[in-house]
């Protein structure tokens, strides 16, 4: 009773921490019963809380006893599974050392317990009230889309990519990709690509007419008859329907940056990771794989046009990119938790 009265008297201070590759973003929002009163954001050149960051946080947290520290889980040992049934979870992943939660009774997101302890230990000076999974951020960000037809969703951060495939609100596949730990894999991918490119170059160098068999029965050319099928209007219409016009309109307002050399490499790395992940999705028998046509990207870093181009050209996906302020999204989750 008294606690409720006191709670109504004080503002709530929501501190949202997002750890990036080499810095930490702290977004603080002060809310009252009427809504958000004030917000402030600061970025610190450290991944661990230092004195400067603690001072910044303390300046606002001391204003009210009702302050909540929210952190976005950045551990690499996390993911999401397409079931909430406890019996089925072990089919996908061994969760014995993981903390997991069911999202809306449809799918499960998890993270390693050790990672949670590590976060709590790292932020012991300030304490931690909420630790959110990036998959929840992704699902909430695309709340309007995941209930629709099959699509690939990705939350792109500077060092992580959280990928999920949703169909009518049901999760089919999810993977959390760490850009730093997957460098070695990317190197292999890059070398494979180079080999393919060399092959292409050999093909482009010309056709050895001598090697062409004149007596070829032309059976291969018979397959050209299928071109008519591809040209049929019905198929084309179906292809057009798969596009999200509304999202395209929204996207046209956002102008994507031209890639510089650094972002080019990163975007290529991201593309490679997404490509590998999609390959996993298609190949892994445990997941219901259906051909993906659309992809929605929640862009928290400012990806370049190249990523979209790669995905569209190489993977034949209709890619829609939405800019997101991930710290504000974490704050929204904290508000939902507190029922604000």
């Amino acid at each position: 009773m008294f606690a409720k009265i006191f709670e109504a008297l004080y503002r709530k201070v929501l501190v949202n921490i997002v750890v990036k590759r080499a810095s930490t973003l702290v977004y603080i929002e002060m809310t009252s019963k009427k809504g958000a009163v004030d917000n402030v954001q600061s970025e610190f050149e450290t991944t661990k809380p230092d004195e400067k960051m603690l001072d910044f946080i303390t300046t606002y947290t001391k204003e009210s006893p009702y302050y909540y520290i929210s952190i976005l889980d950045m551990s690499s040992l996390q993911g999401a599974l397409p079931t909430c049934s406890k019996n089925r979870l072990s089919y996908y992943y061994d969760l014995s050392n993981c903390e997991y939660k069911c999202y809306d009774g449809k799918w499960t997101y998890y993270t390693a317990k050790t990672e949670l302890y590590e976060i709590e230990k790292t932020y012991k000076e300030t304490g931690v009230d909420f630790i959110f999974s990036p998959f929840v951020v992704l699902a909430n960000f695309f709340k309007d889309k995941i209930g629709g037809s099959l699509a690939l969703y990705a939350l792109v951060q500077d060092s992580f990519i959280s990928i999920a495939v949703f169909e009518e609100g049901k999760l089919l596949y999810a993977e959390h990709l760490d850009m730093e730990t997957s460098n070695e894999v990317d190197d292999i991918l890059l070398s494979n690509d180079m080999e393919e490119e060399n092959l292409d170059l050999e093909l482009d160098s010309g056709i050895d007419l001598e090697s062409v068999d004149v007596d070829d029965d032309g059976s291969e050319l018979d397959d050209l008859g299928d071109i008519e099928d591809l040209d049929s209007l019905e198929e084309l219409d179906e292809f057009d329907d798969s596009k999200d016009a509304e999202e395209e309109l929204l996207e046209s307002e956002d102008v994507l940056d031209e890639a510089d050399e650094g972002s080019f490499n990163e975007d290529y790395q991201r593309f490679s990771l997404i490509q590998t992940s999609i390959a996993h999705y298609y190949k892994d028998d445990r997941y219901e794989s259906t051909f993906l046509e659309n992809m929605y990207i929640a862009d928290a870093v400012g990806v370049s046009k190249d990523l979209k181009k790669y995905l569209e050209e190489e993977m034949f996906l209709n890619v829609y990119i939405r800019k997101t302020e991930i710290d504000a999204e974490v704050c929204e989750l904290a508000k939902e938790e507190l029922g604000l």
Partner: protein
Amino acid sequence: MKYSYIKPRKKTPFTTDVQLILTFFSITLIMLLTTYAFLLFKDYSFSKERKELVKSRLALEKNIEDMDNKIAYIKKQKEVAQKVHTQNMVLKDSIANLFDLVPERITLSRAELLKNGLILYGVTPNKDVYNFMLQAPLRSIFQKTYTSFYPAQNGWLQFVSTNYINEDENEELNSEN
């Protein structure tokens, strides 16, 4: 809906600063209440003591009155005692004077002192000795003197002398004293 892996810590408005302030105010309030209670108790104690003192004063006043009465009574008693003592002295002197009056030749066997008189019993060798040596002084003191003689076995005379003073004179003498 709950999304977080962990539950938020319990929040309380009683932060360290608030706790310090509350402790300070609580101690101050407790001290004030204690002082107030102490003063109330003292006030009660004083009024009780005052009532007891008033009661005691009244009792003492009553005692003093009683004692004054007793003192007055004792004074009265003392006066009476002194009066009696004086009278006794007077009487003693009177008796001494009386015995001084008795000559050697007359022997008294008994004397009765009355309020307004004296009865003497004794033996005298003869009437003359009695009349000249004892009756004369008795007449000078008492207004009425009656004497009876009867012979004793040894030839002497036994006598009974009854002497009275007039009442009016006796009263005058008392009032003079």
